[in-house]
């Protein structure tokens, strides 16, 4: 039964097109994620696997524990390059050559930009260039200090946004981060995370399209009379539809995400999976203590929970309104609601936005957001809440859809 339901979905010409579109998007994402440049000694960009290997080698030279000594070395090395003739020159080629010489420690240099910024929310690309080696020992202190300044500044945006308990929660999170961090080449993961959202979002929209016909199709094709008058028409056959939906979501989602991950990691390498996420500038401010590998799992499974929930919502709309078109709109609405609420820019709207299902589809960003919630006596970040919330809602939708369809009177 379930097998035929799946076959029904994929026998539609539109479904084949949807899968083709998804394959194309995965291919494009793979390309974008792996299209990283290595700047050679002449200041020219090099691309391709050989260039990746050279970049990797350059960064590996700086791999290791990110202690005061290492920070000092980076500040010195950065200053050395800046003092060199190419660093001083104004022309583009010299600039590129200077940049090329910084490639090995560029990741650490970016961390300096954040750690020594003038404020928590300020990012200044040239900040690292004004540092002196004796400032190296402030590196981890400043991470915590900037957060505190931001949270407890009465004139700032954060002061009224977080309750005292929430502020304390964030500060504690920062203080309990295991330091010193470590550094290694991790471009594979970072690039993988950055473009994962493209794959996951598209999965969601196409899955919405694929599953939208599972329940509405019977009415659209007027096959409902035979369906509902059959032996299993009001029980097992409905369960089979739900199973088919879940199977399609699971197979298509993991198919796309695994293809994408495997290609990117093969091309760029999987080094650095053990690093704390904060060791890369893209997650320097993250208050969740995770390794890169754990972050990967969270992104992948969060995306899955999000896709599953939204697909189930599509199926519910498709069962309740007997309309495929209405169901297809669900994922698109999911994209619009957050931006609509975002325009309201008030505290309540902000709290809600942090818990909308689309946040699960872009956990790379969500993990960096300062969305915290007070639940009873506990303060939690939005990420664990999102998992619980949509995990529970998805499992509640299953009996709701089943019951709704079971009670349908065929017209």
């Amino acid at each position: 039964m379930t097998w035929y339901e799946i076959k029904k979905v994929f026998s539609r010409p539109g479904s084949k097109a949807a899968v083709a579109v998804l394959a194309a998007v995965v291919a494009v994402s793979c390309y974008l994620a792996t299209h990283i440049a290595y700047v050679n000694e002449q200041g020219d960009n090099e691309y391709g696997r050989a260039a990746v290997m050279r970049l990797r080698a350059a960064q590996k030279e700086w791999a290791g524990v990110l202690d005061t000594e290492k920070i000092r070395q980076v500040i010195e090395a950065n200053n050395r390059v800046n003092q060199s003739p190419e660093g001083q020159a104004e022309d583009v080629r010299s600039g590129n050559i200077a940049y090329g010489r910084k490639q090995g420690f560029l990741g650490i240099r970016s961390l300096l930009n954040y750690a020594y910024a003038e404020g928590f929310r300020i990012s200044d690309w040239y900040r690292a260039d004004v540092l002196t080696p004796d400032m190296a020992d402030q590196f981890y202190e400043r991470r915590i200090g900037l957060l505190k300044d931001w949270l407890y500044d009465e004139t700032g945006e954060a002061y009224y946004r977080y309750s005292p308990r929430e502020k304390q929660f964030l500060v504690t999170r920062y203080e309990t981060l295991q330091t010193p961090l470590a550094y290694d080449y991790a471009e594979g993961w970072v690039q993988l995370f950055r473009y994962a959202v493209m794959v996951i979002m598209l999965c969601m929209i196409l899955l919405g399209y694929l599953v939208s016909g599972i329940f509405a199709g019977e009415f659209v094709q007027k096959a409902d009379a035979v369906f509902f008058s059959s032996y299993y028409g009001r029980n097992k056959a409905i369960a089979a539809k739900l199973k088919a939906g879940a199977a399609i979501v699971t197979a298509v989602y993991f198919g796309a995400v695994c293809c994408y991950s495997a290609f990117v990691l093969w091309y760029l390498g999987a080094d650095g999976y053990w690093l704390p996420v904060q060791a890369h500038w893209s997650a320097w401010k993250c208050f969740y203590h995770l390794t890169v590998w754990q972050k990967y799992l969270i992104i992948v499974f969060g995306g899955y929970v999000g896709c599953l929930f939204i697909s189930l919502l599509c199926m519910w709309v498709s069962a309740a309104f007997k309309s495929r078109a209405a169901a297809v709109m669900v994922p698109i609405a999911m994209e619009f609601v957050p931006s609509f609420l975002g325009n309201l820019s008030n505290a309540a709207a902000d709290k809600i936005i942090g818990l909308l299902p689309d946040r699960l589809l872009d956990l790379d960003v969500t993990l960096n957001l300062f969305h915290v919630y007070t639940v009873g006596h506990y303060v939690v970040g939005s990420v664990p809440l999102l998992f619980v919330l949509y995990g529970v809602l998805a499992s509640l939708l299953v009996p709701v859809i089943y019951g709704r369809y079971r009670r349908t009177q065929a017209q």
Partner: protein
Amino acid sequence: MELVMKDLSRQFQKTTAVDHVSYTMTQGVYGLLGVNGAGKTTLMRMLCTLLKPTSGSVTWDGSDIFRMDGAYRRLLGYLPQDFGFYPDFTVRDYLLYIASIKGLRPMNAARRTKELLGQVGLAGAEHKKMKKLSGGMKRRVGIAQALLNDPKILILDEPTAGLDPGERIRFRNLISELAENRIVLLSTHIVSDVEYIAHEILLMGEGRIRSAGTVGELLHQMPVRVWQITVPPGQAGRYLAEYAVSNVKTDADGVQLRILSQEQPAAKAAAQSATLEDLFLWHFGEKAGERHDLV
């Protein structure tokens, strides 16, 4: 084996599609005859548990069919008037899918599918896509689908619509064979579809069973007689206006009329034995619109 409808009614907003129908069916073929909008489809949908009645009940061997749920549907085979299917499925896949939701085991399903495709004359078309079938072929798949689970109650809503004459006859024979140990209820506008095979005919009009019984009983109850007369073309109009006329045929001698009337319409009119067609016209004459069409 007894399907009992008791005071069965179904209301749609203002229209009463089925109006207090009470009837009992046991084994055999039942022909449901009625004009468009008589309520045939609505009645059948209730018998298939697709529509809840506004009032009244349907019981199978004493149990309410809605309460019986799956146990009742297991006995049921239904061909809807507006038969929908999955356009991109092949005939075989379609039937195997329906077999699965009817609870047939895969081995059994494959065997039944093959058997039925032969019976409805589609043995060569099993790998054709449903959307590529002709109208009559789709109908035949619909009939096969209804028979998959060897139903005790077979409900066919206009099964012969769109079938060619040869196929119609084959279908009639198939139904006759099937009727042995089950209830077959089939609706149609075409009298000849049921005239010879139905054990009982139900004449339905405006939601009510107007008259029911065997063909003999129904004809016996008919309060008018049937006359045949041939008149010159100029005079035909007068008879058409005055009497219910069930047939008009023009040939070299003039216009041959088949008139339903208590009294002899004219001296030279010859008495004929009545047919079911005459009866149908008598009940639904105006509605059927035949008189006007023919003038």
